[in-house]
């Protein structure tokens, strides 16, 4: 299996113990491929559980939304002036009409009106393929939503606790000083889809880190709090929830918007996973092992790390 694993330090950041790399067996490969144990078991399990929870929460959430497919701002529902609403028209066959801030769009087949289980047009906000359960079933949707909300919160707390104690959270989320200095360059690299290689690939880049900070420490907690603010019992126990969002209907709207932002995050996340080496990334998140591609010029590579192997 080649030489024993070595801990490779990175400039300006401490690497947790799990960040082991090992050299590939053949000399010719050494400078190009290097195995790295990137994701410890707790993080891998938490990641996939989280993915499952978010998917179920999204689809059951759309089911719950469909029971009253309109959003408002403030304490109460102003039924005549929603921020956004989905409805079906009186036409035959009915048209799906989505109204956002007073502007109406024809969304037949997708929002407002789409085929039900029997293939006939049905009045529903989101289509059946996007909701869980697929047919109109508010109570079923609520059961799914609450169970997976608990799973999501407990899994998230376990992840955060592990991350804090192991140092993984700091290593993964906090940009190091040199990364902040090269912020502009990092954005340019990102926009041109040039992914870091060599040592730089061992850590998350600055945009990755800031995105994960925004998702893990802002979007997800806000999503949980907005969800709780919709509970009348929680509003009695913690009235600050209403103050925070400016009312229950605002909280419901925030919950919907943040859900959309999380979908956007997942879309970009998956796109980058595919573009930056799908199988390597998947192996990394399933087995923990990740391959670092090194720069092609062997000479400069060894100079870069100052290592001999």
């Amino acid at each position, binding site marked *: 299996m080649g030489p024993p694993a070595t801990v490779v330090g990175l400039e300006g950041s401490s690497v947790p113990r799990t960040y082991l790399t090992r050299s590939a067996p053949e000399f010719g490969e050494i400078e190009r491929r290097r195995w790295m144990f990137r994701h410890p078991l707790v993080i891998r399990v938490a990641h996939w559980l989280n993915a499952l929870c978010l998917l179920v929460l999204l689809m059951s959430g759309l089911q719950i939304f469909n029971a009253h497919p309109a959003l408002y701002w403030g304490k109460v529902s102003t039924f005549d002036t929603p921020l956004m609403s989905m409805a079906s028209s009186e036409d035959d066959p009915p048209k799906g009409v989505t109204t956002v801030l007073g502007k109406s769009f024809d969304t037949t087949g997708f929002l407002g009106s789409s085929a039900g289980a029997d293939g006939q047009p049905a009045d529903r906000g989101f289509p059946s393929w996007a909701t869980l359960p697929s047919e109109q079933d508010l109570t079923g949707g609520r059961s799914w939503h609450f169970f997976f909300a608990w799973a999501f919160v407990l899994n998230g707390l376990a992840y955060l606790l592990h991350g804090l104690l192991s140092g993984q959270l700091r290593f993964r989320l906090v940009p190091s000083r040199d990364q902040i200095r090269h912020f502009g360059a990092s954005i340019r690299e990102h926009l041109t889809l040039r992914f870091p290689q060599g040592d730089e690939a061992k850590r998350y880049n600055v945009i990755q880190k800031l995105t994960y900070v925004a998702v893990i420490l802002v979007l997800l907690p806000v999503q949980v709090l907005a969800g709780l603010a919709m509970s009348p019992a929680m509003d*009695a*126990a*913690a009235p600050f929830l209403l103050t925070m969002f400016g009312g229950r209907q605002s909280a419901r709207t925030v919950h919907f918007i943040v859900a959309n932002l999380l979908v956007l995050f997942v879309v970009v996340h998956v796109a980058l996973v595919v573009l930056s080496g799908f199988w390597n990334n998947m192996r990394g998140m399933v087995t923990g092992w990740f391959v670092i591609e090194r720069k092609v010029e062997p000479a400069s590579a060894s100079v870069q790390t100052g290592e001999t192997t």
Partner: protein
Amino acid sequence: MIRPASRRSFLLGATGALGATVLGGCDRLGEMPWFKRTLKTGEDANLFVQRLLLTDTTLAPEYAESDISPFFKPNGTEDPPDKAYKALVKRKFAGFELAVGGLVEKPFKISLADLRKLPARTQITRHDCVEGWSCIGKWTGVPLSELLQRAVLKPNARYVVFHCADTMDQGEASGSLDAEDDGPAAEAPAASPNADMTKKAAGTEPAKGETDQQDAAPSGADADTTEPVRFYESVDLVDAYHPQTILAYEMNGNTLPVAHGAPLRLRLERNLGYKQAKYVMRIEVVESFAEIGDGKGGYWEDQGYAWYGGI
């Protein structure tokens, strides 16, 4: 060590299986009794944790007069078709008496006029429907605790059940229901008292189809199909004695309108709207609600909704 090729096929298989499960299997999974029970543990946890967070007297937020919604959406039954109820409406509930009974030492009946003489509470609160919308209204009524104290609960009393005037499902023998042909209003509750809350099964009887699936053969099934099902709800003693739990006879300063549950509706401010029974006719104190309706503690609970409506 796993070779990349087998990993690859494993991953492909796993992704495919996951996709198939998510798109096709979830509905079937969601119908399986053991999985339903598992999912319901989430709602059990809601009750457990929220009861830990709330004291018996923690109040739901109250609002200012200026916050009152100009339009308060009536929901569920808006005009009970039942003959007996219509007769009460005609006489402006003059002959109405609320019955308080069950596991109490002193069962009694009380007229609306006498109810109004009891200590009252007025509160401006937000009504949250399980569907997602909210309205703010001003309610005046007699605290439920006032009535329960007069009746004196027996030691084994655990729940308070509200029996209501409105028929939800007609059942097969509709003779006891609305005899006068009253047009669309009479048909509404039988078809679907609340389309958005009820599972839509493509034109078939929505509510009954679901309950039939849930309970293979409940002992009371035969009785249920021949007798109309009237709305009922239940709360435990924590909610029953909560200071904001009132039987309201006024809404926004006026006599409670029929659409909002005249003559009396329950206000249960730390709960969703479906727990707040309208058209309350009789209060029954019980040890268990297993023998009432389908045994889940309320009309909507019998359709699959959680008994605890705090979230």
